[in-house]
């Protein structure tokens, strides 16, 4: 940063240990061979036995049988959280900010989850276990008292790190389901833009790697928002406000997306971009075909794997968290298929290495 851009020179002084550690963690990510074994399992007990021979080790050893998918889910997540917290606790200066940025996305999810839950008259004690532990912060649980976004901001979130993202969606309107989706997406938009700008400000390899990943994330959101908005009461102007203004689609693609009326027109927008055309080609919902969502995930995984090709940059931390998350989703998917004896779709996980 600054006048002389030699960020790499001093990188290892502050972050060398953590980067090394993260690369070590990454080596423990399950590979194709492991998944092949996992999909051959007949029961969750078999799955546990096989996971024992991977870096997960004895993480299920203290669980009484019979195992359930929920327990596996909890333990998998716990492992990620422990690793992440370790990184966060040892992080210094910029890296700490970077890791906090990663946490913010979970915070947004948690807040939205709690508000939606309260609107549907669920008990707080029922909602809490569903919150992602990485996104828990002090005042989080009090969001249930808020009736409007202004309330939410003034009473609770003004203290939390999410406050700056919130400034665009303050209104006196009462909270309802549509409203909440809008809030979620506005928050996410602000968050993504802030994160993107911060990474760009870092310069060097971090900017190179992270801007690509976050740009893709932004584009994906724009696509998904557009596709999901068909047939709802969301107006085109409101929809356009939700698009994160970063990434490859910005600005031309977004203008076109804002005009889109159906899936085909979205696809036409994607045709202009080589990466996205590939993703939209040959998607479907039948067996053997991949959904658009899966294609997006696959692309994300490739980008995250590639991020490990560069050294002296913060991207590895982000990518590691995302890869671990994908891995958790994979293992859970496989476990669910095994538990529900629904083997025909067991192969639709997304391999990482």
């Amino acid at each position, binding site marked *: 940063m600054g006048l002389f851009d030699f960020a790499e020179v001093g990188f290892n002084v502050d972050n060398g240990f953590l980067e090394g550690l993260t690369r070590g963690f990454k080596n423990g990510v399950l590979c194709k061979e492991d998944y092949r*074994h996992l999909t*051959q*399992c*007949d029961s969750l*007990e*078999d799955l546990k*036995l*096989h996971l*024992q*021979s991977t870096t997960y080790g004895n993480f299920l*050893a*203290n*669980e*009484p*049988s019979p195992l359930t998918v929920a327990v596996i889910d909890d333990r998998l997540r716990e492992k990620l959280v422990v690793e992440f917290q370790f990184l966060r606790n040892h992080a210094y200066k910029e890296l700490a900010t970077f890791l906090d940025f990663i946490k913010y996305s979970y915070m947004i999810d948690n807040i939205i989850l709690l508000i939606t839950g309260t609107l549907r008259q669920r008990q*707080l004690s029922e909602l809490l276990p569903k919150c992602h532990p990485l996104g828990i912060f*002090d*005042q989080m*649980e*009090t*969001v*249930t*008292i808020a009736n409007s976004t202004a*309330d939410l901001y*003034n*009473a*609770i979130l*003004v*203290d939390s790190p999410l406050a700056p993202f919130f400034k665009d969606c303050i209104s006196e309107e009462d909270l309802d389901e549509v409203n909440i989706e809008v809030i979620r997406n506005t928050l996410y938009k602000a968050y993504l833009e802030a994160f993107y700008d911060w990474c760009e400000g870092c310069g060097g390899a971090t900017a190179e790697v992270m801007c690509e990943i976050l740009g893709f994330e932004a584009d994906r959101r724009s696509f998904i928002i557009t596709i999901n908005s068909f047939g709802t009461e969301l107006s085109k102007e409101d929809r356009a406000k939700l698009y994160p203004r970063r990434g490859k689609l910005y600005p031309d693609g977004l203008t076109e997306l804002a005009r889109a009326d159906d899936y085909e027109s979205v696809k036409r927008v994607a045709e202009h971009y080589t990466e996205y055309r590939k993703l939209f080609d040959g998607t479907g919902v039948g067996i053997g075909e991949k959904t658009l969502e899966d294609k997006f995930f696959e692309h994300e995984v490739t980008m995250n794997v590639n991020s490990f090709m560069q050294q002296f940059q913060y991207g590895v931390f982000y990518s590691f968290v995302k890869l671990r998350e994908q891995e958790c989703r994979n293992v859970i998917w496989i476990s669910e298929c095994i538990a529900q004896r629904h083997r025909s779709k067991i192969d639709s996980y997304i391999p990482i290495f």
Partner: protein
Amino acid sequence: MGSLFRSEQMCLAQLYLQSEAAFACVSKLGELGLVSFTDLNPNVNAFQRKFVNDVRRCDEMERKLRFLERELKKDQIGVYDNGDNPPAPAPREMIELEAKFEKLENDMKEINTNQEALKKNFLELTEMKQILMKAQHFFEEMDRFDTTEDEALIDPNTPQTVAAAGKLGFVAGVILRSKLPSFERVLWRACRGNVFLRHAEIEMALEDPVTGDVVNKSVFIIFFQGDQLRNRVQKICEGLHATLYPCPDTSNERREIAIGVMTRIEDLQAVLNQTEDHRHLVLTQVALNIRVWFIKVRKIKAIYHTLNLFNVNIAEKCLIAQCWCPTNDLGKIQDALRYGTEVSGSSVASILQQVTTEEQPPTYNRTNMFTESFQGIIDAFGVSTYQEVNPAPFTIITFPFLFAVMFGDFGHGLLMLVFGLVLVIREKFYLAQKSADSEIWDMIFGGRYMILFMGFFSMYTGFLYNECFSRSFNVFGSSWNVSAMNFDAVTLGNASALDLDPVTPGVYRGYPDNYINGSGYPYPYGMDPIWQSAENKITFQNSYKMKSSIVLGFAQMLFGLTLALYNHIYFKDRLSIICEWIPQMIFIWCIVGYLCVIILFKWITWKDPASAPSLLIGLINMFMFTAPSKADGTFLYTGQSTVQIFVVLMIVFCLPWMLLAKPAVIYYRRRQKANRSQRNYNLAGGEMADDVPIIEQDQLDVESNSIQQTEPDPDEKDFSEIMILQIIHTIEFSLNCISHTASYLRLWALSLAHSELSEVLWTMVMHIGLSMAPPAGPIVTYAVFWFFAVLTVGILLVMEGLSAFLHALRLHWVEFQSKFYKGQGYAFLPFSFESIIQGRVDE
């Protein structure tokens, strides 16, 4: 030869075990710890193996035991350890164990839930009590405040105040102290400042009923107006995990409830104590047995893991295992199998059958407590190839010796010896303490015999160098005599240093003439103490230590090369002896050996200090074919010129010998072999010449197949590869003869550094104290001594010791072992309960 000289002879054996006897047999073998099983189903997944369910049952049992262990730890009850080593229970007893653990776990869980409920109740009551007490306090304070203010401003009986007070609602509760600030803030913001919060700390620490952690909490009381605010406040309380308690308005009611709460707390305390006692009783029972249970379960698990490696033969109802075992112990293994069969009551005996194999067997060196650490040094470099000469037994002496050459100081050696002795003598005590869980300590303790030896040898070399904390002993009396110089009083008084001329009669008793006459003698053993105070001490010692380093190095390399001969003879490799070993031997003798010979020659025969020859120039001249002459100080003995030319020619001659002889012989042999088979082929082909071509083709295939079968040569390398390897070896060896010799100079360098450092420490630290006059002298000396002692141990013993250790290690790994040691084997890891229970082997 001792068993350490070569690794144990191993053999591959197959075991045929009856299904019902297999468990008992493997159990016996595990106690024995002499066989290492190979996996016969490497392609089968872990969860598809035969005994996977039994392994899982063991896992489950282990989990229960771990649960009980955690409970023990929570209550800080120590596990009873009487050193028992129970045998693995029979499979049928497993059900019994399972039932027992199941019951214990359930009991424990029940007790825990009860206790948790009780504790929760207790916590609530305590918090209630605290609230009532604090609330009383708040209200009293407020009343006082009210009255004073009321008196000053308005009439206390005006209806407004009464009405206002009536409408004010309040809630009281308890919250974690750490959350109080954010609680206060959220409250203020969410209610827009329309509430009034009072809080007070609860002085005593409370116990969290679920985790058992100690937590600090605060009591708070919130006043507000209206129902809407009440809802809001309650939601915030819920959100921040504050517990609310009902608190009556009037002080009389509060007092009544407080009394009720007090009595209930007392009752609950009694019940809690009883539960605690019951829990303790159950846990002490568990503590008595848990260690034995753990061992049993681990043994069963290990057995089933091993059985999973076996091949299951369903038709004959037996399991087939394959294992490596030491040939010498086959008898013991047979006994174990017989015993196992008997125990299980099987009618058919288990069979052990030796199998011949091309595979390289594992390397197994039987060590004891003493040899273990030395073998460890060798294995750290590389496990020896099967049955090649193991350097470990020689290392026992050479390692401490080379260390001592660099660490030569009588005093430092003594300290090290004492440290080593303490470790060795109290060995049993330290071993009984088991895991101190410190890697550094384990390493030091593991090397205790090495430390002992290093200390002892350092004392010896220290005696030779005549240094003890850099001071000298005058044991035999110096052979220099200053008075013979006849200095006058003036010279003695003024000079800070004086020249002693050994040629002046009587000054050096060892001077050649007197020496021969027997009237005088040099200092009989080690360094003359007078050198300690000489100005040119370093110059003198450098030359001496440098030369002895080279002589020592040559001796060790020569020894290594001799061991190579043992290897060649043992593996019947005549080709290598003639084409490699002999030229190598000649080469090293000519290039380094000759140097050593002239060093010794000069030491022994040279008497005139004025005309001592220069060996360095002499050596350079030797390679330049310059005739030695007295003029340039290179003349040593008559005929030197001829000898030296011969030596150089030998060196030059050995090079092509090493480089070409072996590949040439191999090439020649191969061609002969090829000729022979060619002839066979021609013969066969000739016979077939008249036959139909198709048959000939068939015949050809068969023929070539059969040749391959009769002479299988899996190790046959490409000729170019052999040539390249030979070139590398030759270059390596010839360069190494020089570079390794130079490398041994580290013996001198480190020894010099050590003696200089310790001298500096003495003159800069200890000397200051000793040279002061009383009364300050003794006090300063005392103070300075501790400084000296700490520096001696920290720098000279630990740091210098580590550095000397490292260099000794390098000299062994690189300079010594490169002459004969291949180290391409793999270690023998027997299936043994002992190592499994100690946690040395994972699964």
